[in-house]
């Protein structure tokens, strides 16, 4: 008879313990949030009513004044201009906030990512930088924006800063990890030719990480665009701000239009970034 495989420590108890723990967490969450199926089912009519107020999306373009001047029957009066008008100007702002915030974040993250890579700098440099990056990304974008709106006032600027700072934390960490996986042999080959630190980073590390750096940045841009649309809720200019404005005026048809525009914008950028990232490989 062949010899028996040496026994392995029994893992059954461990599995039962982990399973129970996860289950307990879920039960705790269920009761904590007071999720109730009956409540959900009984709200059917309310949901239907809500959808009814949202549909169809308001796609008018002419304002009341324009209709009057043209001698047409003016649409019923309302507090804000038609949503498509607003969207036309505001889509740009949302996109600009995302682009600028991502770009600023990427540049800073690149510097911090290189300095924060364990194989590129001594412990006393990369260790504090790693901690700083963790702190930066621990604050959600919307909370950063809330603080910046309080400090700087309404407008796009607080959004740009909030997105940039959060992106530094996220991208910096990913860039550092990317640098750490780069082939050390190339680094040594450059050293062997007499390169200094900057030359080694430029010629050994950079060519190896560049495609990933751009790919990760595009991915981040994608997420930042969504963030940028949400930031309107705390007073940053853009699509979100107008969704909130219409909602406060109970103009749900316009809310629907703005949501659709947001979806379209996100989809277009998402697909473009997917396409570019595929080409980067």
């Amino acid at each position: 008879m062949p010899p028996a495989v040496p026994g392995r420590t029994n893992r059954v108890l461990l599995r039962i313990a982990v399973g129970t723990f996860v289950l307990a967490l879920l039960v705790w969450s269920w009761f904590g949030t007071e999720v109730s199926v009956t409540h959900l089912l009984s709200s059917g009519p309310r949901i239907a009513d809500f959808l009814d107020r949202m549909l169809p999306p308001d796609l008018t373009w002419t304002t009341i004044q324009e209709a009057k001047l043209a001698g047409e029957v003016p649409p019923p009066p309302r507090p804000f201009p038609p949503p498509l008008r607003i969207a036309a100007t505001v889509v740009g702002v949302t996109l600009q906030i995302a682009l600028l915030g991502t770009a600023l974040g990427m540049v800073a993250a690149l510097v911090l990512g290189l300095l924060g890579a364990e194989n590129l700098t001594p412990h006393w440099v990369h260790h504090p930088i790693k901690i700083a990056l963790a702190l930066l990304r621990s604050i959600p974008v919307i909370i950063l924006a809330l603080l910046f709106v309080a400090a700087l006032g309404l407008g796009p600027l607080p959004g740009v800063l909030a997105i940039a700072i959060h992106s530094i934390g996220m991208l910096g960490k990913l860039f550092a990890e990317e640098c750490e996986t780069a082939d050390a042999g190339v680094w040594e080959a450059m050293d062997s030719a007499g390169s200094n630190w900057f030359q080694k980073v430029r010629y050994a590390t950079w060519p190896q990480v560049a495609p990933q750096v751009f790919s990760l940045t595009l991915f981040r841009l994608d997420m930042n665009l969504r963030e940028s649309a949400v930031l309107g809720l705390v007073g940053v200019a853009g699509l979100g701000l107008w969704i909130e404005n219409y909602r406060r005026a109970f103009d749900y048809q316009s809310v629907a239009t703005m949501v659709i525009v947001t979806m379209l914008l996100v989809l277009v950028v998402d697909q473009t970034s997917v396409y570019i990232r595929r080409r980067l490989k």
Partner: protein
Amino acid sequence: MIRLEYVEVQYGRKPAALSIDELDIKSGERVAIIGPSGAGKSTLLRTIKGYVRPTQGKVEVMGVNFMSARRRDRRRVNRRIGLVYQQFHLVRRLTVLQNVLCGRLGITNRWRSLLGWFSDEDRRVAWSAICEVGLRDQVHQRSDQLSGGEQQRVAVARVLAQQPAIILADEPVSSVDPAWAEDVLELITQVQRRHQATLVMSLHQPNLACRFADRIIGLRKGRVVIDDDAAKVTEAHLKELYRGDASLPFNGATGRPRADQSRTA
């Protein structure tokens, strides 16, 4: 050119990886280091390069004592020692020319090089190195599109661009298709002769070592057990050197016909 005295290299508390009483390599010599795996071949090369700091002893390369020299002097010598690796260590996404220009990084203007700017002289040296290794037609090809043998040629050209006084090659043909191994060694010894550099290479195959080197240094457990002209190394020497290492076929290990070959065949 290279002088080691009572050098001892130790990693942690393990027995010495390298223990050499005296080793002298003169300018222009062509030396092959052979020996079983783990004998200290790479350690010896890296000690000469200055990447491994001996726990004791003296390493003197090009008149500079690594143990006591200032950083600047060590860097100056470091720049004149070119290294060829088993795994080539090319920058995969760069072209042949760009890879070879990397050999100029220690010589060219450092800050300009960060922007990808190299002087006309850098380009001329790189181009002549590329021609010398026979990659004239592939100069703008990405290095990861080349075959293993060609990639090692690029690595050799990169070392040439560095204008080295010493070329160290660490198992330069172990990752190369065996059919191309001789070509690569032919090339390395050719450029070594043409540029009057000192060549120290570690090789896994004793027959190639005897063919391409003038002097053989056999390492076993970190100690020099053979140090002789390639022509004087015999089958018996090699058997003793590789004792207990079953990985090597001994038929014709020195590259010379064996007396008893007819009987074994």
